[in-house]
């Protein structure tokens, strides 16, 4: 099957991460996952923590953990502004595990000196990394 390709650029506040041709991406929209194929209508959306699946024209699939950000689609290109993004192999499982435990510990009691939304978000990000790292290990 011949599928049209388009360009995906991924940027973080620190640096451009990569730019390449893809045929499809599945991104973690804040309201649920969304798939983008070539010639998608112009779109701007917020992303939550989740899994980014990228398929290139050769059919290779790559999976990334995204902690949040934005996706803009238009002119047959997609630009992803990610807070942080890691390929599965780059995920620091130990660190994510520690972050998860720390957040969980903090969320236990009811205390006034804790910023709960922030803790909750930290936990969501850590769990997302762990989930994605785990999922891949099961597949391979």
């Amino acid at each position, binding site marked *: 099957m011949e599928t049209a390709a388009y360009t995906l650029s991924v*940027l*973080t*506040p*620190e*640096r*451009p991460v990569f730019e390449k041709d893809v045929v499809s991406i599945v991104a973690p*929209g*804040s*309201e649920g996952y*969304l798939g983008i194929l070539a010639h998608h*209508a*112009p*779109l*701007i*959306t*917020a992303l939550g923590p989740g899994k980014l699946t990228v398929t290139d024209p050769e059919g290779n699939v790559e999976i990334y953990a995204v902690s*949040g*950000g*934005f996706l*803009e689609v*238009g002119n047959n290109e997609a*630009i992803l*502004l990610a*807070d942080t993004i890691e390929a599965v192999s780059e995920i620091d499982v130990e660190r994510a595990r520690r972050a998860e435990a720390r957040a969980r510990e903090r969320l236990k009691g009811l205390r006034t000196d804790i910023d709960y939304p*922030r803790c909750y978000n930290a936990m969501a990000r850590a769990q997302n990394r762990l989930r994605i790292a785990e999922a891949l290990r099961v597949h391979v």
Partner: protein
Amino acid sequence: MAVQSLQDIRRRIRSVQNTQQITRAMEMVSAAKLKRAQARVNAARPYAAKMDEMLRSLSAAAEGLDHPLFEKRPVRRTGVVIMSGDRGLAGSFNANVLRMAERLLHERPREDLRLVVVGRKALQYLTRRGWKPALVYTDLGDVPDATRVRRMTEEITGLFLSGEVDEVFLVFTRFISTLNRRVVTEKFLPIEGAASEGDSAGDYIFEPSPDAIFGALLPRYAVTRLLAAQAESLASEHSARMVAMGSATQNADEMINQLVIRRNRARQAAITKEIAELVGGAEALK
């Protein structure tokens, strides 16, 4: 200068040479750090530019721009973020930032100001003058640390959102080129000037809604601005130090040249004196 013994001059030369070795090493170290810092400044630009663009199409599309970070209030208290370096020996880098900051601080009564101090140099200077900063950040490292800047942004916007301050200014050094930098004062909060005439929302579909994306975008916009400011400030510091140490090395060269001339003259004088004494002694024996 009074007549110096040959010994003294030789000691001076050695001491200047030692200092020169240090300044030369510092120049080279700063050059390496500058390269990294400059790369970071450039690497951060595409993201910042895209975010700017997104913010403009969003503000054209969003109904009410009533996000808390946009809120303009009558100003009772002003926050000032002062970005200096952790270390000295960087020419006028820290002094320039502090001079610009002083100008801003003099415009208002002390009790209406809240300071956010970045870098040990500004902290030393301001505490010596009796300021009690609301927030302090030191040990900045050689390139900005995104995680720390994120936390910093949260804490600074926290001051604004809690009503502790009603506006926040940023005093930092813009990096223009290795030889050129400029201290600037910019409004940081409330975020303003996002939408201008002629911006159009385009035909974008906004998911979930322009306002929701807006709410997610603005805090990150603040982070991006602070991160860029920090990156430029660090690059400026390294370049200022590199230039200062470069000219210190040159000055040491000049100093050594003069001392060498003086040393040779003193040595020649000593030899002449010895010969004169020998001749005098020989004459006396006749």
